[in-house]
């Protein structure tokens, strides 16, 4: 009875020694690869998030620039802190066959107050 029990214990010990586990090298290598990949992906992720954020800002900037142009078309001043409008007198030329139209007026440059997006329009007199 006692001999049989001891034999079973020895067998179990033998089996335990024969199991193949993770070596330290494998774990370190896996962690290293995972870390590198994660660093790379997280930085790309971050950059992408920034790009999306800046795209949103740009969209807003476009909207503000357009707002400046629309105000100029309507004869209003630009909304303070939102858009900036610059006017420069000039002539808008359209060349037809046999005749040319030189329409006097103002070239209007509407931009976001932060100086971001810029749009151009010609407002005839």
């Amino acid at each position, binding site marked *: 009875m006692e001999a049989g029990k001891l034999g079973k214990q020895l067998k179990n010990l033998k089996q335990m020694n024969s*199991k*193949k*586990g*993770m070596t330290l090298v*494998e*774990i370190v290598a*896996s962690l290293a*690869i*995972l870390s590198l*990949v*994660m660093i790379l*992906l*997280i930085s*790309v*992720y971050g*950059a*992408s*998030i920034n*790009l*999306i954020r*800046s*795209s*949103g800002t*740009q*969209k807003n900037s*476009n909207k503000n620039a*357009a707002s400046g*142009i629309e105000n100029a078309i309507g004869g209003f001043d630009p909304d303070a802190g939102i858009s900036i409008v610059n006017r420069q007198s000039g002539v*808008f*030329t*359209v*060349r*037809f*066959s*046999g*005749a*040319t*139209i030189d*329409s006097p*007026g103002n*070239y209007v*440059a509407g931009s976001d107050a932060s100086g971001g*997006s810029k*749009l*151009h*329009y*010609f*407002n*005839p*007199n």
Partner: protein
Amino acid sequence: MLKGILGKNDGYILAWVLCIFLVVSVACTAVISSSMVSTSSTTTEHNAQQAYYTAKSAASAVSNYIVNNSADTTLINRFINNQGSGSVSDMGTYTVVVTSITSEKLQVKATAQYKNESATVTSYLIKPPATAPVKIPTDHVVFVNGSGASGFGQCSINGNVYVNGDLNLSQSSSISGFVIVKGNTEISGYGSTTNGMFGYGNVTLLGSGAVNGDVYTKGTLNMGSSNGIRGSVYADKGVTFTNSGSIDGDVYITKGDLNYNNNGNIKKNAYVDGSLSMPNGLITGNANISNNATFSGGGIKIMGKLTHGGIFTKPSWATVSTYVNSYSNINPDLKILPVDDTPYKMQTLPTVSIPASGDLYNVLTTEDVSTNVISKSGKITSTIVNSWNSRSMQGQTITIDATTNNISLLLDNTNLNLTNNVKIEVNSDGTHFVYIYLKGTSSISIDSNEYIGMKVRGSNPCLFIIGDGTQTVSLTNNSAINACVYIPDGTFNASGSNLDNTKAFKFVGSCIVKTVNISSGVSLYYSPPIITGSDHPLAALKSGTGGSAWKLESWGSN
């Protein structure tokens, strides 16, 4: 879990790594794609917005120009059915097409390209019906208050012409302006042209007569010319080709037929509230016919689609496709409005009223004109005229000085017939005028090397020659006039060469008479007379008193 799934103890950490890597990769790919799409969409949005503003700028500029120059029909007509283009840095490129939808509605369509984006903006201009008068006589270089059936010989007329009767234009004559004819019009002879016309009667083109613009007629158009019409045709009563001429634009027939008795060509579309007969000829675009369509002969005759409501007739050997590329037997239900003459109605000529008294009846003496300067009003007698024609006055210039006051001169049964190379020049500051009144049998006749007109030749006239009856103004040989002639029952004769080669005109100004006799290659140029002040005898003819202007009706996006 993975351990359980794999059923083994070894290597499951690597599977975890791969799994996490996959999840993170998918997440990152999604974020990157999203950011790229977002950035691209923002850029596209900006470019599209700029393209829109560029298109709107172009449409605004052209619309504004047309509105501001409404009175200049000739100028406006140059842009109709014509394409313009241009570019501005930071704004891209643009094209503009001005289309006449009706005589009272224009479409200005601008398309702009900025980087890879394009946008189209359309504006519509309307000319509201105006209360008569809508046109004023002094808008014309020649206004014939009677018939012009025989008065236009060989001539070059640069400006608008109005004829209160029939007009015959022949012998290579040209009118670089818009023509309104109350009667019938015949344009014949090699190279005779106008820049568009409105005819209350029938219009006939013969020989190689041509119209370099649109033709509006309340009658019929007979295309007997081997040349043609460089615009569209709006005919109330039908169009017939009797020669091989072409019509570059569309053809609208309010109530009448389109007959090809010869090889004519409509280069765009035909809209006919009537029947079509095509034994010959060609329609390059579509034909919309409310009634019958009859074909004979061989060869394709309609390059586009024929839509008609009546009977299709053809020879037994032919098929429909022998004559048309596409076909539909459905009444197009055309609603073509009659040609509207509202924009072409003319102001009634004001009656000439020569002052019954005043300084102009004070007889000018030879002493008054001894310095060759006339600085006061008075009556010009034959004594004065004879003194100007004396040998000592050979080649002299007489100045009428209107720099500080108006001057009225009267010819009362007197002929101002210069014979001695004498020139009469008006010196005006543009705010004072010279009126030469003709009464009774008076006339003005100038001949070789003689001139009556503004000191600065070709300038806007401040000189008005006004007659109350059948007086005559004549130019012969190398002479010239730079004035506004207003003798509604009078006659204007012009022949011979111009005064000198550097001033290539015989007449500059505006001439309103009952009869004209223009020949020998005479050149006439329009120059609007300066008419200001309510006391001006022709104040009713002040430019801008008639006519309605184009105005912006609406905007569109296609």
